[in-house]
């Protein structure tokens, strides 16, 4: 089967980007919207066609999903090492194509309503197309370097979109923060990529992920496995560094600080980039290299992934409890859910049912993309109506916004893991996998599940129930262009869990069947319902319980409310240490010491020349005297020294 046409999936948005971007000032709003949506629609249709072809027609040969690669050389490093560009079709890339296409199309549709009347409408759609292009390229990458290339492009489109409201100082700061933090993580990623290239001799995913070669120390890619760095194999180090890159983009602790601030961007952007697609790129990256992570040195790197993921999900859930900005709550929730996915990857095995963690992680990625995008779009709809992000300004909106209310509720139920919504199935698989391999992480995630349910319903009740506020204009339901994507996503969130995911996605590409683990499901649903119930008691009607609890936990509350002061720590490091203690002295050093030395040399020359110039008075007499003295001295020298 020839999948060459999939190259069009990223190229169509690129063309749209060029058309809209080059004429950003000329194209009218409705034209830009239509061009953008149509472009993405084409890509979406192609993606779904690809998925259909791959999963149901040609992908499976003898029960194993095949990997299709189409590529061309882009640049040669050495005679053996080169960067290729191309498309790689395998279960996870096709699954990601579907996710990206669906969410992106919904966000495009939604944006036509949400951004209506905005000055930079065309620019916004150009950026969205640029992002879609980069994300598709990332998903379809055939090798590490290609993924790095699109990784950076995704980063820059994220930067542009966060800074979309470029006259707003907080948006500028947030975009800068996002770019620099992820850039810092990418520094690790890049070093990791270069290390892999150097020690294995290839960047190619197919070669790198070959399980037979990975288990055979004589194979070319394992030739340098014996080279160590700080007690670990260099390849393990490289994998950890690559994971640092993934952690940066996926907002894992401690590189998560940019994600909450990134909410300064327009809400559709938050839904698309900072909830559903770009932030899961880190998960996708680890999944891409999963065989390597798993086989190299018994999966030490994978353990790092598991613990970082687990810890991130816990800390994010705790912080989310106390926040008031509804988008930030969702952002921390995103971070927490991505932690879940990372953790699931980390504890996964390779073959057959062992690979449940991997499957679950991808499954959760899929379902989470749907319901989290829905949550963000719903939040956007609310913000659109209330013109505020803050929970205190909302309440009782269910009467004004029925569609938003119901869709939001579905998404909240999904994320809380209530059956039969999508989140229940994926979360259940994750917990089951964790239970099998790592009890500690299982209990952590179990608690997180409860916390998730609690803060999501705190949010839900806070917005749609609770005390009714006085609104300047009466809130109204959003236009159809916005509610249509909400309804579509709500349907998907409700039913996506029924997809037999393990049939399609598994680490060894074979596929297997799973069933619901009743005991674990009972536990997780139990704690979920408990969380919802507590939220119900505290927030459905206006009560003072919340305040009492808050004051009871005073110190702890303050810490979580301030996100454990991690931002302040970073600020301290960058402002006080890097800027003030390093960059400033460097600039000073250059002006005064280096340049000073050069000037000193120059000035000394000038001074000396001035003194010499004094001797060079232009008075013939002085010259004559000097001349005669010289003659006398020379004669004396001849007399006394030469003889």
């Amino acid at each position, binding site marked *: 089967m020839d999948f060459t046409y999939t190259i069009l999936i990223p190229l169509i948005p690129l063309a749209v980007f060029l058309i809209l971007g080059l004429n950003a000032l000329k194209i009218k709003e409705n034209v830009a919207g239509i061009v953008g949506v149509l472009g993405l629609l084409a890509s979406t249709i192609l993606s779904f066609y690809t998925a259909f072809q791959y999963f149901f027609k040609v992908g499976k040969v003898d029960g194993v999903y095949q990997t299709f690669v189409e590529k061309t050389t882009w640049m040669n490093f050495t005679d053996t090492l080169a960067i290729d560009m191309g498309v790689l079709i395998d279960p996870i890339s096709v699954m990601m194509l579907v996710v990206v296409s669906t969410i992106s199309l919904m966000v495009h549709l939604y944006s036509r309503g949400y951004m209506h009347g905005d000055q930079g409408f065309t620019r916004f759609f150009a950026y969205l197309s640029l992002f879609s292009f980069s994300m598709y390229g990332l998903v379809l990458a055939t090798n590490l370097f290609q993924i790095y290339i699109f990784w950076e492009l995704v980063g820059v489109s994220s930067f542009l979109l966060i800074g979309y409201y470029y006259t707003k100082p907080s948006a500028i700061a947030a975009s800068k923060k996002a770019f620099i933090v992820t850039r810092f993580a990418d520094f690790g990623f890049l070093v990791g990529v270069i290390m892999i290239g150097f020690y294995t001799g290839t960047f190619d995913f197919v070669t790198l992920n070959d399980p037979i070669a990975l288990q055979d120390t004589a194979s070319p890619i394992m030739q340098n496995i014996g080279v160590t760095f700080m007690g670990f194999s260099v390849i393990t180090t490289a994998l950890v560094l690559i994971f640092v890159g993934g952690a940066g983009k996926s907002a894992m602790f401690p590189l998560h600080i940019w994600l909450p601030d990134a909410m300064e961007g327009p809400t559709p952007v938050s839904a698309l980039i900072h909830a559903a697609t770009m932030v899961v790129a880190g998960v996708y990256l680890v999944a891409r290299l999963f065989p390597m992570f798993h086989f190299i040195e018994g999966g030490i790197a994978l353990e790092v992934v598991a613990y970082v993921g687990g810890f991130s999900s816990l800390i994010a859930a705790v912080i989310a409890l106390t926040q008031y900005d509804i988008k930030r709550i969702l952002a921390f929730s995103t971070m927490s859910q991505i932690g879940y996915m990372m953790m699931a990857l980390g504890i996964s095995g390779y073959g057959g049912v062992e690979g449940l963690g991997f499957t679950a992680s991808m499954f959760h990625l899929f379902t989470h993309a749907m319901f989290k995008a829905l949550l963000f779009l719903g939040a956007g709809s609310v913000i659109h109506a209330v013109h505020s992000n803050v929970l205190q300004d909302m309440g009782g909106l269910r009467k004004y916004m029925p569609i938003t209310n119901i869709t939001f509720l579905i998404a909240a139920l999904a994320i809380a893991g209530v059956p039969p919504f999508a989140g229940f199935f994926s979360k259940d698989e994750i917990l089951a996998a964790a239970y099998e391999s790592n009890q500690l992480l299982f209990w952590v995630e179990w608690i997180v599940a409860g916390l998730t349910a609690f803060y999501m319903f705190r949010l839900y009740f806070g917005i749609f129930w609770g005390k009714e506020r006085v609104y300047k204009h009466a809130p109204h339901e959003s236009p159809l262009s916005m509610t249509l994507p909400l309804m579509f996503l709500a349907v998907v969130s409700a039913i996506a869990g029924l997809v037999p995911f393990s049939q399609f996605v598994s680490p060894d590409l074979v596929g297997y069947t799973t069933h619901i683990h009743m005991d674990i499901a009972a536990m997780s649903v139990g704690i979920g319902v408990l969380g919802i119930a507590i939220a119900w008691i505290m927030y459905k009607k206006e009560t003072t319980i919340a305040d009492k609890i808050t004051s009871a936990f005073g110190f702890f509350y303050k810490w979580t409310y301030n996100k454990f002061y991690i931002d302040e720590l970073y600020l301290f490091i960058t402002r006080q240490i890097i800027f003030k203690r390093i960059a400033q002295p460097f600039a000073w050093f250059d002006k005064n010491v280096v340049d000073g030395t050069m000037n000193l040399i120059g000035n000394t020359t000038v001074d000396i020349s001035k003194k010499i110039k004094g001797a060079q*008075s*232009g*008075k013939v*007499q002085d010259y*004559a005297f000097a001349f*005669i003295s010289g003659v006398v001295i020379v004669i004396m020298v001849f007399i006394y020294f030469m003889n």
Partner: protein
Amino acid sequence: MIPGVTIYEILTVTTLLFFIGVYGFVTRKNLISILLSVELMLNAVAINFVAINKYLYPDMLEGVYFSVFIIAVAAAETALAISIIINLYRLVTSVDVNVTETMKH
């Protein structure tokens, strides 16, 4: 050859004259005085030529020739120098070397 006078004595006198000229050349500020000192030095040298010719090579006359040349050149030089000085005086109404430094610029 002067009876009873050695070449050493003659050269001593000319040396003294020469260095008196040097002293004058360097210390004087007035252009004419400087020219005077130059004349002193030239004459001292001319005597040297003559004396050495007479004492060491009495059969030849090269010393005399050169003395004549020196005198001729000195005359030419003086004439030219004085004309320059006069012209300069017209321009800056001074013949002080320090003042005439302005010519350098």
